[in-house]
């Protein structure tokens, strides 16, 4: 269909705006690369994994202690919040009476909106002293795991809930007509049907946990070391960037951008595979 003169003009302006919006992500990549370039020129990527320690002032750039802290805290948080999140979603969809389910969902939505800095503050003032009673110092990998688990639980509960909603009601009805018990229906019919959707939501939550900065920064203790126990103070990649950006110069600053680049690649990998799983689950639903 041909457009009028006014419409053509508008279309042009809109395309320009959309181009700017789409270019932001490229701009971010370009700036991360160009800012990390100075250090990548004379420090090989391998040295970020094999140097003796993280001492940018002495030209030592080992990021593995931070990497292990990031991965372990994410893994721990997922182990705790995945079962609870799935149980929450099952509760609202198949177990709770409608009024209670609505209230429960509202509570979860409310928690999803609490900013990470508030979770961090609560973790620091309430949770860390409790963990410290078990084993000092209190600000530790365990505290970080607990706070992260709380933060991603609403994400998992809400996304699994929508994955369950997408399972055709006919599945549930047919199974119930065969006389299967509620749990047998969930275990054998509903969960397998929603499998891709659930995987996608766990990956999305993992992406959020890896990228989370403030809460972890406030409760993990921020000592650069490979965690030797759950009670050890650790520093994650994100916390390291937030702590050192304020005074980092030259190669040190560039090394922080390299850490940012690594972080971004990990998160993008997770988010795009989550997207892939989500699309697969949509395809299943149609058939």
């Amino acid at each position: 269909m041909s457009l009028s003169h006014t419409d053509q003009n508008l279309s042009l302006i809109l395309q320009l705006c959309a181009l700017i919006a789409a270019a932001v992500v490229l701009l971010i990549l370009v700036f991360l690369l160009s800012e990390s370039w100075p250090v990548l020129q004379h420090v090989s990527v391998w040295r970020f994994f094999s140097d003796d320690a993280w001492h940018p002032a002495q030209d030592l750039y080992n990021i593995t202690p931070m990497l292990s802290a990031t991965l372990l805290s994410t893994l721990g948080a997922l182990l705790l919040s995945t079962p609870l999140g799935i149980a929450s979603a099952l509760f609202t969809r198949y177990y709770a009476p409608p009024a209670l389910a609505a209230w429960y969902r509202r509570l979860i939505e409310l928690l999803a909106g609490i900013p990470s800095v508030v979770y961090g503050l609560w973790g620091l003032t309430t949770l860390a002293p409790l963990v410290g009673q078990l084993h000092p110092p209190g600000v530790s990998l365990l505290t970080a795991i607990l706070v992260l688990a709380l933060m991603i639980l609403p994400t998992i509960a809400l996304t699994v809930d929508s994955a369950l909603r997408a399972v055709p009601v006919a599945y549930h009805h047919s199974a119930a007509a065969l006389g299967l018990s509620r749990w047998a229906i969930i275990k054998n019919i509903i969960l397998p049907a929603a499998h891709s959707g659930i995987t996608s939501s766990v990956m999305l939550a993992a992406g959020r946990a890896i990228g989370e900065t403030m809460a972890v920064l406030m409760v993990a203790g921020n000592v650069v070391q490979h965690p030797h126990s759950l009670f050890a103070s650790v520093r994650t990649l994100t916390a390291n960037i937030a702590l050192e950006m304020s005074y980092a110069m030259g190669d040190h600053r560039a090394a922080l951008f390299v850490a940012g680049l690594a972080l971004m690649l990990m998160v993008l990998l997770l988010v795009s595979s989550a997207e892939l799983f989500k699309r697969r689950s949509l395809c299943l639903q149609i058939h």
Partner: protein
Amino acid sequence: MSTNTLATCLIWLAALFVTAVFVCLLADIISQGLTGLSWSYLIEPPQDAGRAGGIGSIIVSTGLILLVAIATSAPLGLATAILLTEFSTQKSTFAQFVERSLDVLSGIPSIIFGLFGNAFFCIYLGLGFSILSGGLTLACMALPILIRTATEGLRAVPNDYRLSAAALSMTRTSALIHLLVPAATPALVAGLMLGIGRAGAETAALIFTSGYVDRMPDSVMDSGRALSVHIYDLSMNVAGGDAKANSAALVLIILLFVINSVSSFLANHWMHKRIIHL
């Protein structure tokens, strides 16, 4: 006990446990924050690095940062959403490219936005540590959610509206101005509120873009401390700042709660009333 009963018990227990933990958390935040909360706390400037005084200047800075973020991202977001829904098919390469990049953008962690904002707005564009830099960084963060909600809002307007406009030989531009955008207004405002809510919760992206300075900003080129940054700074860097941090956290939560409630009310109620199905 059968597996079925056991599963029912476990799921109820899990829900009870989650509720208990979160009710404790909320009760903690509210009871600890309420003690220091008063009218003078909201309007007085902070003193002694925040240990005394209030959060007057912090609230002004937060408002300015959000204003900059929304003033830049809302027009850009709306324009992109209109392009995606009204001026291109979902299959077109350009539309797919735009949607892909927005998906990627929405997954980027906030600390990365902080790095980017510092390198691009503060240093490359020479804006320095300023409310403008912080607001523009948040604008980049808010874009995907604004565009997604606006796209959904426009798609929810029935196609009859477009066909009727075309039958009256209105240009698409005037159909947009007089019919589609007004019809989708509740959804657009809801998306805007959601974007403001997200941006208001942000800390990591602001630390090295809008900075720490806690006095009243004179202009958007001044450094200004957002409420979330204030909470972080008080609890981590200021000894004896916990009480004030708790009050600031309560203020932030109430603010975000109001914004999110308005947003979901608009999306759920106003939108349904507004659209006429033929």
